């Protein structure tokens, strides 16, 4: 690297440390971290909502504060993942695997600080890569054609086998379901509407962010109803918790460097952002670990890895932006709007003509990470207080927050309906042991797979055969072989395990008793739905048929395999899942809550959004009061009313007051 860059960099550093820029950095970080924590406000939304505030700022301040929102929101999602098993933004869903388990073990503090330190480490790593290597790396990114993207996203899917050790087929079915859901709405390649069944709102598709709220926030709150504990988890204050993950990072240098490298590289590739970065890093860290089983059991490495990776992807996403003018992720794409509003054209011209501002920005992307330490620390301490609030209050608060989060994304009442119905479906599927995280993985990768496949097919029209492009180009061939390799290993293990099992005890024999299993009926319904969609596939033409046809066929196959598996399961597995899911009382409570949420959706347009939320929250509190050992006295009722009003008012202040979300007014408010 030449001395020019160093000179510019130091000037950039100086620019970061003016009082006003520092202040705006703090504001940006706070907004970003809080936005990231709230389900429904993704990184993209957080940046986009902040952009208008930067119009009146000087260029360097605008960029620094936007960079702070970008880094802050990418980190902030972790807090919700850890505390309530709900990713605040899609990029932190891998953090739920170990983060929430740690909370359950009473180690929430350790997990929160691991996310903090991991994000800082990853962010600095990504920022340094951006500073030092942005030119060569962006040229590398250009080598990735659609065919390489295709194999890369398939590679993301192979993570399944190691992530869901229970029933491999159910994990696969979950992912196939996620892929299938991503095909509803407009075809990413041709813009033709698909699977709308004549119902117009389905044209907008099922947004990934909305379904993430269903799969995690909503579903998780219903699951929380199941046990009789008063709190989500015991909160233990551990004085050493803050520095422990910091030390751990430097003991596990190899693991950290691996996950940061993956994060940065995924960030550099246009179209793949923090969600894919974190899941890939998590999987690779697990694959190469000496004791892979500790991942997923509540280990702080399981938080350090995805969090360092998703923040490393931030710097990565800016590499092609600064050198070629191409945003590396959706977050970086919105950032462009902020740049352009300042009269700056991101890309090679900016590096030539406005190098001082460009380097102030790059320097800021490193400096903001140091800002995350104190601000993230304060906000983590504040948000950990959620664990000393009784579950009775948490559940309805998060449920109503899911409503407003779902609505705010696109100002769409239909999205709220999708969130509620999706959440109910997610709960049913969870009870049938189909992991929601597998569905989420399918959703994250679905459109990327279809888009890259579609582009490849169109490009292949210029060649003799599709395979010439898809497999017989050097980079694609390498990625293809990588896929084959990682698929063969677990398959081989599975077959080996099956063979041993057959020789020993597991007598498998058809038994009608298995018809009583809950998952049998869920699978049967799923098979029916798949058939309906397959029939609908027949009506599609051309390229827009290829991907759904494949996905739904695979789904059908998996459904049949699992149904057969269930029917011939050994008798002792029957107790595992009866029609009554947990016990009669909690099943009734879960059903009641779900029915209330559906009612909440219908009340929304007539009563008004917040009135409807107030009503359902009050009813939930009153209904569950006795179970939570609260007498229905006048005093407690007043307390419930007070809490409800405060929660709903806080949501109103945040979404309508600050973000100007225009919720339906209805009769009341």
């Amino acid at each position, binding site marked *: 690297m030449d001395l020019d860059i160093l000179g510019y960099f130091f000037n950039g550093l100086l620019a970061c440390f003016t009082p006003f820029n520092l202040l705006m950095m703090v504001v940006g970080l706070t907004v970003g971290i809080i936005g990231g924590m709230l389900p429904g406000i993704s990184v993209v939304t957080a940046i986009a909502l902040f952009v208008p505030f930067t119009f009146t700022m000087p260029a360097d301040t605008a960029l620094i504060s936007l960079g702070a929102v970008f880094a802050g929101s990418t980190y902030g999602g972790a807090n919700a993942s850890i505390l309530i098993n709900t990713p605040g933004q899609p990029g932190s869903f891998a953090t739920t695997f170990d983060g929430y388990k740690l909370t359950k073990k009473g180690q929430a503090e350790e997990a929160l600080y691991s996310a903090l330190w991991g994000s800082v480490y990853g962010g600095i790593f990504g920022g340094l890569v951006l500073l030092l290597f942005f030119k060569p790396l962006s040229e590398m990114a250009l080598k990735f054609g659609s065919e390489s993207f295709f194999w890369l996203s398939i590679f993301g899917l192979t993570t399944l086998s190691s992530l869901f050790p229970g029933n491999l087929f159910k994990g696969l079915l979950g992912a196939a379901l996620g892929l299938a859901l991503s095909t509803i709405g407009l075809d990413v*390649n041709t813009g033709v509407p698909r699977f709308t069944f004549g119902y117009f709102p389905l044209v907008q598709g099922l947004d990934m962010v909305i379904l993430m709220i269903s799969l995690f926030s909503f579903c998780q709150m219903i699951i929380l109803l199941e046990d009789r504990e008063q709190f989500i988890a015991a909160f233990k204050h551990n004085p050493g918790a803050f520095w422990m993950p910091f030390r751990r990072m430097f003991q596990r240098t190899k693991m950290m460097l691996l996950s940061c490298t993956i994060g940065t590289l995924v960030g550099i590739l246009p179209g793949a952002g923090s969600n894919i970065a974190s899941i890939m890093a998590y999987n690779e860290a697990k694959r190469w670990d000496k004791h892979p089983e500790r991942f997923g059991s509540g280990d702080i490495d399981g938080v350090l890895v995805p969090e360092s990776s998703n923040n490393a992807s931030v710097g990565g996403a800016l590499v092609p932006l600064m050198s070629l*003018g191409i945003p590396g992720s959706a977050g970086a794409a919105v950032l462009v709007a902020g740049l352009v509003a300042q009269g700056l054209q991101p890309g090679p011209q900016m590096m030539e003509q406005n190098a001082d501002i460009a380097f102030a920005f790059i320097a800021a992307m490193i400096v903001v990470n140091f800002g995350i330490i104190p601000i993230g620390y304060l906000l983590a301490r504040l948000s950990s207080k959620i664990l000393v609030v009784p579950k009775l209050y948490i559940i309805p608060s998060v449920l109503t927050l899911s409503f407003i989060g779902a609505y705010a994304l696109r100002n769409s009442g239909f999205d709220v309906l999708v969130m509620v119905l999706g959440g109910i479906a997610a709960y049913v599927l969870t009870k049938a042991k189909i992991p929601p995280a597998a569905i989420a993985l399918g959703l994250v990768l679905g459109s990327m797979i279809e888009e890259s496949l579609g582009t490849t097919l169109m490009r292949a029209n210029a060649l003799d055969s599709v395979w010439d492009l898809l497999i017989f180009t050097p980079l694609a061939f390498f990625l293809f072989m990588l896929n084959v390799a990682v698929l063969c290993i677990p398959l081989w293990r599975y077959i080996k395990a099956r063979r041993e099992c057959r020789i020993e005890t597991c007598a498998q024999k058809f038994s009608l008793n298995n018809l009583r299993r809950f998952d049998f009926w869920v699978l049967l319904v799923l098979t029916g739905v798949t058939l309906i969609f397959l029939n609908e596939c027949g009506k599609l033409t051309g390229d827009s048929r290829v991907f759904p046809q494949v996905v739904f066929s695979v789904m059908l196959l998996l459904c049949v395999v699992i149904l057969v598996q269930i029917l011939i399961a050994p008798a002792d597995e029957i107790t595992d899942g009866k029609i009554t899911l947990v016990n009669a009382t909690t099943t009734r409570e879960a059903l009641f809550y779900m029915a209330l949420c559906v009612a909440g959706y219908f009340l929304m347009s007539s009563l008004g959004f917040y009135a409807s939320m107030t009503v359902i929250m009050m009813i939930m509190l009153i209904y569950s009061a006795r179970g939570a050992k609260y007498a229905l006295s006048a005093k407690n009722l007043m307390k419930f009313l007070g809490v409800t009003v405060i929660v709903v008012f806080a949501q109103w202040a945040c979404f309508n007051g600050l973000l100007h979300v225009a919720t339906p007014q209805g009769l009341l408010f």
Partner: protein
Amino acid sequence: MKKLIGLSLLAALALCPLHHAAASDYPNKPVTVIIPFSPGGGGDIAVRVIEKDFAEEFGQPLSFVYKPGANGAIGYSAIAAERPDGYTIAAVSYPHLLMNKLQGSGQYELDQFDLICMPVRDDSFLVTSKESGITSLEQLAEKAKANPNKLTLGAVESLGPSHIPALLLKKAGIPFNIVTFNGGPKAVPALLGGHIQALFATKGTAMSSASKLNILAVAAEKRDPNLPDVPTLKELGYDITGFIGRGFAAPKGLPADVKARLEEGFKRIYSKPGIAERYAPNGMSVIWVDGAQFRQMFNDFQPQADQAMQLNKEING
């Protein structure tokens, strides 16, 4: 406290005068503008640029509501169903408003809108990468004709301002293999990495990578004043245009005086000195087109759009 909020909101509602669309005091409350695209995109920026001017001109601020989804079709369908009192207007784009309809994703008719104006446009350019060494359309066409259907021409979206000229160019006798992408961030790297040989992209999409590109032609009636050396497709013998027009519309049935007030107000905003410079970094140029002309543009475009739909069908089976 709940009651308090309820009461105060009710009071606020009661204080709002029942509005009789009288132009004399229009607008007397904030005007909601529906953006049928995501915040930060071109559809948003085009309005954000004049956010302050609107407040100065009309004495009331704009309040932004984003209804993205299905390439704008969700937002357009929502506007068509709004009340035509001038307090809900929308940012609409040419040719999306028509193309969504033709592709079957919009639940509206063009007649359901009162078109107010289309003050801004973003033209499509035909570009190649510097590394390709192709510097003129002639050279590109020659190469394509020598290897029919072997040269790939990209378009940034499907059946929009860059795909349509690509299709028409193929129709005009240059045998390209056409590939559509899902947005500029996918299409531009494919061109720079040599995965496709040429690309149609609007100025707003392509210009941040301009120093890596050869600009062969602009799909407009006139040359771009900022790029005076780039010929138009028409000069090169192909009568083809392609651009995104950014304009404003309201639900059908706007009172005539309100409509006149809006058109007149926007016209004043867009004739301010320096307005073109504010749009330039986004690749947009300011050209005033009034409501009637805007509708005429759609009418004139209809045959071309049908032709493009037909061609696309032929190519993709």
